[in-house]
């Protein structure tokens, strides 16, 4: 369950940013999670409550934006939807697509006061 490690980093970043900005609470933490990031949103949510405990983020809400995966076909010069890591272009069947989006695991912003 590497989601716990990942959520620990997220909360640490949020708390550090809030403290540097002179805030006393983290109210909302916003993440971007790609569908191919390897992290499971439910597991992240479960970890969130645990790792926020006894920090200035305790009681904060977690908002997660899911980023659908997209591949890029060098032949069609266009993007295609990529449900898994299979990088075959559905139009021309070129197998050498390049993954453009879907691996995101980022902290987008925090709301503080």
């Amino acid at each position, binding site marked *: *369950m*590497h*989601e*716990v*490690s*990942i959520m*620990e*980093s*997220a909360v*640490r*970043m*949020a708390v*550090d*940013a*809030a403290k*540097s*900005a002179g*805030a006393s609470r983290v*109210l909302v933490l916003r*993440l971007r999670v790609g569908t*191919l*990031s*390897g*992290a*499971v949103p439910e*597991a992240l949510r479960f*970890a969130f409550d*645990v790792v926020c405990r006894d920090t200035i983020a305790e009681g904060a809400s977690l908002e997660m934006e899911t980023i659908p995966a997209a591949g890029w076909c060098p032949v069609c010069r266009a993007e295609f939807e990529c449900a*898994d*890591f*299979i*990088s*075959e272009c559905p139009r021309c069947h070129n*197998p*050498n697509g390049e*993954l453009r989006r879907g691996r995101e*695991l*980022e*902290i*987008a*912003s*925090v*709301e*503080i*006061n």
Partner: protein
Amino acid sequence: MCKECGCGLGGGDVKIGGHSHEHGHEHGHDHAHGHDHHHEHEHPHGSKTLSLNLSLLEKNDRLAEQNRGFFRAKKLLALNVVSSPGSGKTTFIRETAAKLAGKLRVGVIVGDLATDNDAARLRTAGIPVVQITTGTVCHLDAEMVSKAAAQLDLDKLDMLVIENVGNLVCPADYDLGEDLRVVLLSVTEGEDKPLKYPPMFHSAQVAVITKSDMAAAAGFDRKLALQNLERVSHHARIFELSAKTGDGMKAWLDFLGERQAAVAAK
């Protein structure tokens, strides 16, 4: 994902070479990203939004880059060997090191949840080895590798092989600073492993089909396995071998020789 293993919760349990290390927090935050990047705006009710836009793996990625720079400076070829438990990582690494003896000097870092059995197996073969027991953590990270590497005499090595924890899920997200990520697929595991664990197979530069001597007994469909590998990791170099019989090892060893020479020439 592996919801049972509690990765990260028991960070204090990590032991490197038999000694306990505090894991995780001492590197703190150096604020290299500065706060002028933060975009703030006030809300009417007194709260405000700070834009951060940072990767959650940023700390690991940064430490991995440090490792990579360090290994390059030492002219070491670094491999991160990943697979499910029981795919034959330790035998594969032991035979690779044994067959390279006299040509390339190989050191190994081994990660396991518990026991130092794998390290003992390699040590018996005369290979310099450091065991990391991760306790409950289901993957190695760049910081553990950096601490373990400090216990090896890297100036006397040409190649560093990192045997990751047997797990095809979590290690995929953690760069260790390796030159090559090598994923193993044994013939006894089923041809569809690459389709079941695409993030890991996609992230590897090298895929090795192991235990090829057992292919017939396991009813292994070679063509289907190669097809699946190529669908998920079309960019990867594929080797098929048996570490036990030595069959197919030559192509793999030649490849390592070339890659090590390229690293040493930089």
